[in-house]
Each structure stands twice: as C-alpha cells, then as structure tokens.
C-alpha cells in the first residue's frame, strides 16, 4: 500500500518551494518600502531645506521676503505650548492612571472611564480642535491664546499618557508594595515612595512619545485659531502664538519655490527636535529596562 505518490510530491515540491522563495522576496520588498520612503523623505527635506538653514533662520521672524524669513516665533511658540501641555497632561494622565490602577474599585464606573479613554484615543485630532474652540477659546474666554492651545493639546495626548502610565504602574511587582506595607507604610506613602519611583522610567518613555506627537500636531491648533503670521513672541499665557507645524503649513501652501524651501528648512528643525526627544525616550527605556 502506497498512499503517498512520491513522484507527484517531488514534482509539486519544486514549485511550492519556488513560490515560497518568490513571495519571501516580495514580502521583504514590501517591508523595505517603509525604509525607502523614510530615506527618500529625509533626503528630500535635507536637500530642499539646507540652503535656508543659517543663524538668521533661527533669529528672524516670519516675513514676506523668503530670504529674511525665520522661524523664531514658531520655535518660541512651540516651547510656550509645551510649557503648558507637559505639566497639565502629565498631572492629569498620571493621576488618572494612578486612580485606575491603585484605587479604583472594580465597578461599572471604572469600566466606563477605561472604555472612554480607549475611545478618546480614536477621536481625530481636529475634533479636539473643535472642542478647544468652543470650551477654551469661547466659553472660558481664553481667546486664541497659548493657554487654550496648550489645554487642547493636553486633552489630545491624555489617552496616550494614561495608557503608558497604567502599563508602567502594572509592571511594578507586588512584592515591592507588600514590603512597603509590611514596614507600616500607608497606601499613599507606598505609592509615593515605592510605586511611583519604580514606574517613572516607563511613564516618562510613554509621555515623551506623547509630547513629540503634541509638538507635531497642526490641525487642532489651526481650528482654535493659532496665528499663521506672527512677528512677535508670546509675553504671557494669554498671548497669541504660532507653532512650528503651523509655520511650516503656512510656508508649504505658498506657491513660490523659495517658501517651499523655507518649509523644508522648518521641517528639518522640527524633525531634529522630534529625533532628540525620541532618543531621550529610547535612552530612558534602555537604561531602566527590566530592573525586576
């Protein structure tokens, strides 16, 4: 009895192995596509923008004349925005995560908060802009200010920070808490002196990625009415402002080739900022990974 026809199997084997080879190549090609796009993108931005990168570019305000235009107001505006967004989103995000992981009873309300955060993460950023326009700019009468922009961005990245912080808190081993309780520490003392210090690397890594997302956000700021042509620096939280991505958008949508090159120069600066932030996140992750 010979159920397997060896001849036939052998014949088919060759073509099956061939298909495997070919498709392995195709799949690799598809995977490398991302790498290629990234390469082309960085190459294009560098070659287009390098000509405008000079000291003047950092110290000049926006201008009608491309050779005099600079990105000073946008950089300072972005820094102001981050000065609001970073503390607000960190406090709210870590606070929410602490509540959900350490205090929240397992009931309906807690589940609602959790599901709600997951859904907020899927809301398009421009809708957060509409929220900010109504609540912060109009209702709270903050106007089109740094404060309104910073609050809007904080709410936008809140879900990311909450989820990252929750994961970091969850990774603190139970033994460490038990040890702290055994020494007579109260719940908050344990959280403050044992749980939080142990989870800070994880929280920071996730949060820094969230901040870099906030730096690159354009749409919500346009909706709340950030200015596109600014020749002054914000003086306080209620000043009008522009930000890097908005300045880039403004240059990119002008037809003259010179402004396109300015936009590319702005993009180089923006990407450099993000690379630095991301490197910090990776450094923190590598330094503190797997301590337990």
């Amino acid at each position, binding site marked *: 009895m010979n159920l397997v026809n060896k001849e036939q199997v052998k014949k088919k084997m060759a073509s*099956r*192995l061939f298909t*495997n080879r070919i*498709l*392995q190549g195709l*799949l*690799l090609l*598809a*995977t490398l*596509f*991302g790498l290629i796009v*990234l390469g*082309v993108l960085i190459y*294009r*931005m560098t070659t287009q923008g390098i000509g405008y990168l000079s000291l003047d570019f950092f110290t000049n305000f926006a201008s009608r004349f491309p050779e005099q235009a600079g990105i000073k107001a946008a950089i300072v505006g972005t820094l102001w925005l981050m000065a609001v967004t970073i503390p607000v989103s960190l406090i*709210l*995000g870590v*606070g*929410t995560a*602490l*509540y959900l992981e350490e*205090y*929240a*009873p*397992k009931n309906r309300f807690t589940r609602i908060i959790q599901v709600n955060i997951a*859904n*907020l993460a*899927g*809301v*398009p*950023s421009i*809708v*957060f802009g*509409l*929220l900010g326009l*109504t*609540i912060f700019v109009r209702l709270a009468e903050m106007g089109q200010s740094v404060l309104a922009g910073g609050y809007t961005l904080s709410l936008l990245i*809140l*879900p990311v920070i909450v989820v990252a912080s929750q994961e970091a808190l969850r990774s603190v081993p139970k033994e460490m808490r038990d040890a702290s*309780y*055994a020494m*007579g520490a109260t*719940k*908050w003392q344990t*959280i403050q002196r044992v749980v939080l210090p142990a989870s800070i690397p994880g929280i920071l890594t996730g949060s820094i*990625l969230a901040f870099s*997302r906030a*730096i*690159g956000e*354009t*749409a919500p700021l*346009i*909706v709340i009415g950030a200015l596109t042509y600014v020749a002054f620096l914000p003086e306080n939280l209620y000043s009008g402002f522009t930000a890097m*991505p908005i300045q*880039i*958008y403004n240059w*990119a949508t002008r037809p003259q080739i010179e402004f396109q090159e300015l936009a590319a120069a702005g993009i180089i600066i923006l*990407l450099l900022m*993000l690379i630095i932030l*991301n490197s910090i996140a990776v450094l923190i992750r590598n330094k503190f990974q797997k301590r337990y």
Partner: protein
Amino acid sequence: MGEDHKNDNLALSRFGVVLGRLPILVENRKHSVSVNELIKQNKSKRSGKIIEKLIPFLLLLCGIISILTTVGIVFTLIIETFTFFNQVPIIEFITSKEWLPFYSGEDASYGIWPLVAGTLLIAFIAMIVAVPIGIASAIYLSEYASDRIRKLIKPVLEVLAGIPTIVYGFFALTFVTPLLRTFIDGLSIYNALSAGIVVGIMIIPMIASLSEDAMSSVPNSIREGAYALGATRFEVAVKVVLPAATSGIVASIVLGISRAIGETMIVSVAAGSSPKATLDPTESIQTMTAYIVQVSLGDAGYGSTIYYSIYAVGMTLFIFTLIMNLIAQYVSRHFREEY
C-alpha cells in the same frame, strides 16, 4: 475601597501585633519606645489621615476629566450642530448634492455628500496602499524575519509612525505629486491620488504593527504542526497563521480606515479644496477635515452659518470614526480565536 485594600490593612494590623511584642524582649534598655507605640503615634497623626483620604479623591477628579472631555466633545458638537440646523434644514444637509458654503445668500448650498465622497475616496486610495504593504510587512516580520532584521525594521516603522502629518503633507505636495505627474498626463497639482497614497504610507506602520501583534500571538505549536506536515513557510503564513489572526488583522484595517478618515493635514495640503463627488482620483477634491481647516484659516465670523457648519461637518466626521472604532473593538473582541 476594594477588597485588596482591606486585606492589606488586616495584614498590617496582624504584623503590628507581632512587632509590638518585640520590645518586651529587649526591655532592659531604659528609654526604649515600643514599635507598637510608634505605630499608634503614626496612626494618630492628623495630616497623614487627611492626605490618605484626599488623594484618592483628587486622583478620581483626574479620571473624571477624561470623561468630561468626551462629554464636552459630544455636547459641543450636538449643540453647535443644532444651531447650524436651525439655519440650514437637516434635509438639505443630508440630501443636497452640492457643498457651496461660500456662495452668498440663496446660492449657498450645504449638502454634506461631496465632502463625504471626497473623504471616502481618500480613505479608499489609502487602504489600497496600506493594506497590502502593511500586512505583507507584518507577515514578513512575524514569519520570516530574523531577530536582527526585526530589530532594524521595527524602529524604522516607529519613526515613520512618529513623523508629523504636516511633513507627510509637504512630502505629498512637493515629491509625490510631481513624481505622479511624470506618469499621468493632466494630473492637477492638487489631487486625491497623491494625498491618498501618502495617507496610506502614513497608516502602514499602524496596520503592520497591529497585524504583527495578532500574528505573533498565534501559538507556535500550530505552526510546528503545519511544518511537520511538510508545509513551506509561505504556506504556513497564509494557510495557518493568517486565518488564525484574522480578527486582529481586520481590526487593524478598520482602525486604519478610521485614521484615514480623520487625517487632516495631508489632505489639506495636497488634495485641494474643491468639494465634489467624483471617482476620478486625478481631480482635486475636499475632505471633511480639510473643509474645517479651510474655514478655520479664513475669516468666517463667529456666529455665521459657515462658522456653525464646521461643527456639523465635525459631527459627521466624529460619527464616522466612532462607528469605525466600535467595529474594530467588536471584531477584535467577538471573533478572536482563543488558544
């Protein structure tokens, strides 16, 4: 307080009793303070007690902010959309085939269809790009790649996912569009094709990493079973792993569509601002998001019909993405294969 907390307290008090006996053993020393007394002292401290009570309350407030955000979004959109429907009948909004908000007086027309059509066209083109490449990358990373290659490719995908959309928009306008124009005659400077392709590129990392997660969670024993029967790597990937990971992959695609619908800057920069319902990807179109940006940059006064129209459009956009997100959650929850 949860049960955990009660247990902790119980354990603590028991521990306290044990410790409290210790000082008796060393009572020879004159000024010794028993640990029991120390614990009592600690417990009677007022400020500590207040903080213990106050902290959970403050943290709960933080959690409530996230709920308020959702409530705020929903109410903002509903209230302002109603104001809009007081000025423009809802029937016109849904049934009219023309979106001409900037025409004066009687000529203005507010039919959402052209914006929805433009949005769906972009999402469709984006998916044609993102789904095959994203899933192919996922298969390669999960089934073929060595650890070294995975360590090289994954950060690249993370970087691609972290690039601001305005950069992608500029890339579409200044690189992809001119490139396409060398192949396609009569391609307008602003067109759906270029914007759609770049939106697709933006979504690749998301589909790739979510699908790879789904494939990696398929247990190895199943793969090894197939290998033992003489299957090739490709056969294992397509006939065993893909079917087992279907729910995760479908969820990643639906989330991708949701992202494409909500994407703003790429389409604002590269797809143009001419709302029309067309299937021709070489033409200029306008998406819902791009319309909101156009109005925000213009000088439409607070309280005008155009001002309220962005909320009606935002509401439509919100409903679209919400449905997509709910579908994704439903798919990944109800069709998951458990091993």
